[in-house]
């Protein structure tokens, strides 16, 4: 019995594609099912072509679905574009002016007309959700309960209207109902549905981040907008800066004053922030930046996904300095990574960059709810701020491990002096050659301990001769591909990086030694492959690369891997 269903809801921007997807997701979640929901949209507010790709299963899902069981077309164009993606036995629900074709593969349904019958044409999306759930064999009460809950705040009239609309759609499609193998019943689950953007916001808040200066840029805006609902109950401030340079400077200024702060942006904004990265490094001020990647130099493809900022993030800003670069693979991991990023940035007084991408930021995924808030939070500022002319506080004391004690301005007689110029231990400008060497070495001395903080990559069948190697959001796709290849008796393992920089060269070199490596990345030049060649001494690797701005699917990796395995 099949318990893994994929549907696509497609139409123009502004037609409520996401509303339908969200409703269906919510009903599934309330029934204890797992979803993997991906939005595909253009950089426009009305028109064009958008879709929501929703995969539903009774088991945890690592990746989006591909072949469609149900295609919901809000316009005829959507049908033409996607009909080939239907698997045999799949059905297309097509919005029409009036009832029309109605067979096992194409079902025309007048959404607007039914909505009007229910009381208002604006409920057309609810009609569509009703029809889909009827086909999936969902009892109507589950949908009715979700609707009542969702529209409770808007008053009973609106709630009743939507339930009536849902019923219209449900009844119209009832006889097309199929057995999907799901057990449909309201269940309290220990799972959560989160997007990467939402998880990043929650993780930052859980890390006691209180200030979020930012400049809007897809797909990073979602990280900050997910903070907004909490600004009422938590004492945090979101400030839209005049540009990304200001955003990063504000975060640094706040951090200097002892308040955890972060900013989020995408590649273009991250370009502007690079001088801030250097300033944080030189002044040794903790800083957390989320770079939610999108493809292309310059403006590129604003609403699409990619992974081409890895090497840029590791090297951004002039000269050399230690930094952390992380790339979580799932929303829950994003939450944990954000907490660690704040902790480690402060512990080592360095910048920490968290790489997301559009796919991870916007996809909503069901995972086990393992989110926690720490009972206490470790802060690294020295409380006792003494100091006088004879024994001044030395902000940049030449500590063995490179980490000089950090104090807050105006917290005592010790004067806190920081500067982006090269400086002496007291924080005054210094052009002394020996001092320059000492300070460079002091900053670099943090690296051994920073490397020890890094989690090793996730290893799957590490003894296999062939390893798929990836980082960040491609994790789930690679995991599923490895599983499917295993089902086809191919012995393939995976090495999946979450903590990218700094890198434990030796440990990683050992894992990769003597294997056929296939890099699976969303960029054109295999940036992780090149990094591993540089750091871990790997000599050659094969690649499965995708840089069309769209996410991977397990099928694609399976097919390509089969061609490559020697």
């Amino acid at each position, binding site marked *: 019995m099949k318990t893994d269903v994929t549907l696509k809801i497609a139409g123009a921007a502004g037609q409520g594609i996401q509303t339908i997807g969200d409703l269906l997701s919510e009903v599934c979640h309330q029934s204890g099912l797992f979803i993997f929901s991906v939005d595909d949209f253009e950089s426009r507010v009305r028109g064009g072509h958008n879709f929501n790709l929703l995969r539903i299963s009774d088991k945890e899902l690592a990746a989006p679905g591909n072949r469609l069981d149900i295609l919901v077309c809000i316009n005829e164009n959507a049908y033409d574009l996607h009909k080939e993606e239907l698997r045999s036995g799949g059905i297309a629900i097509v919005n029409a002016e009036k009832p029309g074709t109605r067979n096992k593969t194409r079902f025309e349904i007048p959404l607007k007309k039914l909505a009007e019958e229910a009381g208002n044409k604006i409920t057309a999306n609810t009609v569509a959700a009703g029809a889909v759930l009827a086909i999936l064999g969902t009892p109507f009460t589950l949908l009715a309960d979700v609707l009542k809950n969702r529209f409770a705040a808007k008053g009973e009239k609106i709630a009743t209207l939507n339930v009536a609309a849902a019923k219209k759609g449900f009844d119209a499609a009832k006889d097309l109902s199929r057995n999907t193998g799901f057990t449909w019943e309201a269940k309290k689950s220990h799972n959560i549905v989160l997007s990467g953007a939402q998880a990043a916001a929650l993780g930052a808040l859980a890390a006691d981040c209180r200030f979020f200066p930012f400049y809007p840029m897809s797909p990073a805006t979602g990280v900050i907008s997910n903070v907004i609902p909490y600004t009422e109950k938590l004492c945090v401030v979101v400030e839209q800066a005049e540009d990304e340079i200001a955003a990063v400077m*504000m975060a640094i200024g706040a951090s200097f004053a002892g308040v955890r702060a972060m900013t989020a942006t995408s590649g273009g904004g991250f370009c502007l922030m690079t001088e801030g990265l250097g300033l944080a490094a030189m002044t040794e001020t903790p800083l957390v930046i989320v770079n939610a990647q999108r493809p292309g130099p310059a403006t590129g493809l604003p609403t699409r996904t990619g992974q081409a900022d890895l090497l840029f993030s590791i090297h951004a800003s002039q000269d050399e300095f230690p930094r952390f670069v992380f790339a979580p693979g799932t929303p829950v991991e994003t939450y944990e990574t954000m907490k660690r990023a704040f902790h480690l940035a402060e512990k080592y007084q360095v910048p920490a960059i968290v790489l997301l991408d559009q796919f991870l930021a916007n996809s909503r995924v069901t995972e086990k709810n393992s989110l926690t808030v720490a009972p206490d939070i470790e802060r690294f500022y020295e409380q006792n701020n003494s100091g006088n002319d004879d024994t001044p506080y030395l902000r940049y004391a030449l500590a063995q491990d490179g980490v000089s004690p950090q104090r807050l301005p105006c917290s005592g007689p010790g004067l806190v002096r920081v500067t982006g110029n090269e400086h002496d231990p007291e924080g005054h400008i210094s052009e002394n050659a020996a001092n320059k060497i000492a300070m460079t070495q002091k900053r670099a001395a943090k690296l051994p301990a920073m490397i020890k903080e890094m989690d090793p990559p996730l290893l799957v069948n590490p003894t296999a001769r062939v390893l798929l190697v990836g980082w960040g959001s491609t994790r789930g796709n690679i995991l599923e591909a490895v599983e499917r290849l295993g089902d086809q008796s191919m012995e393939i393992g995976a090495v999946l990086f979450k903590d990218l920089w700094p890198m434990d060269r030796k440990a990683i070199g050992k894992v990769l030694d003597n294997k056929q490596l296939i890099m699976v990345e969303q960029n054109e030049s295999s940036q992780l492959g090149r990094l591993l060649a540089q750091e871990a001494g790997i000599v050659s690797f094969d690649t499965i690369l995708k840089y069309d701005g769209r996410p991977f699917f397990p099928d694609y990796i399976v097919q390509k891997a089969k061609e490559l395995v020697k």
Partner: protein
Amino acid sequence: MITSKEFNCNYENKWCPGCGNFQILAAMKNAFAQQQIPPEKLTLISGIGQAGKTPHFLKCNMFHGLHGRALPLATGTKIANNDLTVVVNCGDGDCYGEGGNHFLAAIRRNIDMTLLVHNNQIYGLTKGQASPTSSLGMVTKLQNSGTPSSQFSALVIALAAGAGFVARGLSAESGHLTELIVKAMNYKGFALVDILQPCVSFNKINTLSWYKERAYKLADTDHDPRDLAKAFNLAQEWEKSLPLGVLYEAAGTPFHERVPNLKANALASHNYDSKLLTDVLLQNL
């Protein structure tokens, strides 16, 4: 009793002898002493340039940042901890050129801090290129046929952007400048003091005598600083006369009173509250 000597520090000064910056530094120390703010309660934030170096030359907490970026740095610091007394030192190139967008945004935010612009109408530290406030046609080594852009009038722009405190000082009028700095620091909101500052090494046109010949004090006139229209007119005086003093002052609502979460207490003052975070973040997921 805090005297201005309290702010002396023995870090070697790096300005040219005769530079107007020395008098600005003296006026700052006097202003802080007059208000009885000890060095440890003072946070100076600066950009890059000769002006940007100022915080190194006195006792204070300081963040000497990047060229053009002092204002957003200071903004972040004040949003984090509004209890800090923040004074910003910038050059004219620093603040009106590289940081021009931040200048406009800072005025609009109205963060409660004081901006001192050491306006020498030249790029001092980089050895004498034209700045936004250089007069049209000013010849420099780089602009050897005269700077082709017309002069940026910071005071006019500040007024137009809605600044609530706009003043002009002259470095050589150190007592007057001290008064202006004190007034600016007491203003509840963003206060701009544009300080005419002779650069003896590179600006051979706008010299101390050039300024002195034209400068007059608004306090000696019947100017009412609440009169915005008049302030606009004064801000446009340049070639023939240079008004010194407070051109415009009007009460406004500072940033921390506009933002709900900053109204009561400084962000930095709250304790980490695990229970609250758990309830708010995790309970309704």
